[in-house]
């Protein structure tokens, strides 16, 4: 397997520094995964292999932990992300309809990324902004009390085309 991480990659340095900061403790696995995902946008397999080696953790343990938590993704989430909150308050205020419409317009189901990797559609189980329901998060920016048209327009602004 020739998928070792290039040591010159700044992200690798960042990861190495984080692991060192956590004293190579296996119980810091989740913190380290958070940090890796922040710099890579997702968790590529070779990054997981690198972490396994550094923390002396079995690969299966790392994989099982990664797949347990919603936050971690093994696949690229797309350059731009559109996350629809489907928490209770948003549900009551019609989040499902927004999601359906969005899925129809983009042709992407929740969890999918467009073929050109430009846009990814996701859902969240409450981001805790219930007073502003329904809520959509576009690239880490919370859009309050949204309508589908607003979101579609903002997405078009971001990725240029439909």
């Amino acid at each position, binding site marked *: 397997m020739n998928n070792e991480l290039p040591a010159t990659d700044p992200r690798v340095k960042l990861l190495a520094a984080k692991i060192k900061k956590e004293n190579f403790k296996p119980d810091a696995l989740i913190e380290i995964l958070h940090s890796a995902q922040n710099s890579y946008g997702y968790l590529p397999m070779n990054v997981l292999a690198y972490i396994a080696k550094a923390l002396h953790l079995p690969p299966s343990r790392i994989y099982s932990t990664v797949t*347990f*938590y919603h936050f971690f993704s093994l696949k690229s989430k797309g350059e731009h992300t559109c996350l629809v909150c489907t928490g209770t308050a948003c549900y009551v205020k019609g989040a499902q309809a927004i999601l359906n419409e969005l899925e129809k317009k983009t042709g992407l189901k929740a969890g999918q990324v467009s073929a050109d990797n430009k846009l990814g559609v996701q859902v969240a189980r*409450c981001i805790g*902004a219930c*007073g502003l329901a329904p809520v959509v998060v576009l690239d880490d920016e919370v859009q309050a009390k949204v309508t589908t048209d607003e979101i579609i327009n903002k997405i078009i602004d971001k990725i240029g085309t439909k």
Partner: protein
Amino acid sequence: MNRQEFKDLVIAETEKTKNSTCKHKICICCGAGCISSGSEAVMKKLQEEIIERGLQSEVEIIPTGCMGPCNQGPLMKYLPENSIYQKVDCSNISQIVQSQVIEKKPIEHLLLFADSRERPFSNADEDPFFSKQLKIVLKNCGQLNPERIEDYLVHEGYRALDKALFEMSPEDVIAEIKQSRMRGRGGAGYPTGLKWETVYKYVNDQKYVICNGDEGDPGAFMDRSVLEGNPHRVLEGMAIGGYAVGASKGYAYIRGEYPLAIKRFEAAIKQAKKMGLLGPNILGSNFSFDVEVRIGAGAFVCGEETALIASIEGKRGTPRPRPPFPAESGLWGKPTLINNVETFAGIAPIINNGGEWYSEIGTPKSAGTKVFALAGKINYSGLIEVPMGTSLREIVFDIGGGIQGGGEFKAAQTGGPSGGCIPAEHLDVKMDYEALVNLGSIMGSGGLIVMDQSSDMVDVARFFMEFCMDESCGKCVPCRVGTKMMHDLLQKICDNNASRIDLERLEELAVYVKEASLCGLGGSAPNPLLSTLRHFRNEYETRIGKYEEKHIEVPQTSEV
């Protein structure tokens, strides 16, 4: 910093505030809700405006935590008059400064709830939204800058820790908490004092304190607001807990979905350490206590204490059977005290004012106040804190301003996916732990979603079941397979494709999953289903009736 230095500092800071030339204070809500509504831009604009008018020495601008009515954000509070402006926009800043600061006249049409109340209140405390509330946990949330420890010190900050460390023994602290009759605010309502005492009694050279900030209930955001609005209060509560039970290390487990809360809490730890309010030999005493933040990674089940412990240990967040309880064998097998954010935030006031004071608030069985996250089809949604025993009607109609669009109240959902629905005929229920359990719901962490006649209760049950199905950790059979089966059956009912036998099976499964599951997630997953069955059975019957009409000639499947 030793005790004397701490006291001097508090006095100095208090003096500084008192002697400040700033006669006007403008608080801008910088809770996550208002930030999403644009409060940061508003603050920037306000700062520019103040500089432009040369009022820097007269007006102090304070970025604060959540003020409550999040739906009306961005919110801006003018002190000392206590006028709150809603939906503040960069374009009306200049007008507000001119009128409120210079001419001392509130601008009525911009005040809180101006668009829905006949006459808005220029002193927000007189508005029923606030006047019916009693703020203990949230007391300083909308007043102080959560990123400055000095602000907290001025507001009685760390005084309770100081008192506990130097004037009370751990037994005294526990006795005080027991006397307060406070119950855990995480949902189950276990008496806090009793829990502390249990951890205290286990002899071990290493014990831990964990603050559960994995607020996973969709529809609940009180922990977020407390962590964002007053992180030091939580930290102080944890330190007092550590002192009482004999722990030297604490972990705050905060949801990854709350980056602002994490940032502010981490900053608070840093500040407290710098001042010697955390770390070795706090304030010169023998007590050492350190806190570390652990970031959750998106798993509802991690709100369950044993799952949370597994997660802090860096593993899959799967619960394990209790007993042994974490008080005996928790984090890394050591005695561990786990309390919710809101619980820890309520500790300092109890130590400062005495357990008796606290025990007199609320109902005989549930003392104190409870923070609710009010949302759904309601006019004024947001974060509120009321004494236990406040009726649902007061919360929905007096505080929440009634149903949005003049609709009809149908049900209030409490306790999120672990709770149930309270129908209109129980609007007068006095909200406390027992009353809600009697109605087939639970207090939970305090999410309160109001539904009007447009809500379909079978679909609501399906919605929550889908949540539990997705969030089940997959370890035990009843929850893993049972929630999936129940969800499929509910879907079938929603599609008018279910027979009476399906409904019977669903009910049997619900009781089974409730009783046989390993942890609280499975144990409470059927609650929304059972409570809607109890209060809105007719909606299920209607759908079954529709199926039976279609299949009149086909014999029904039945028990073999």
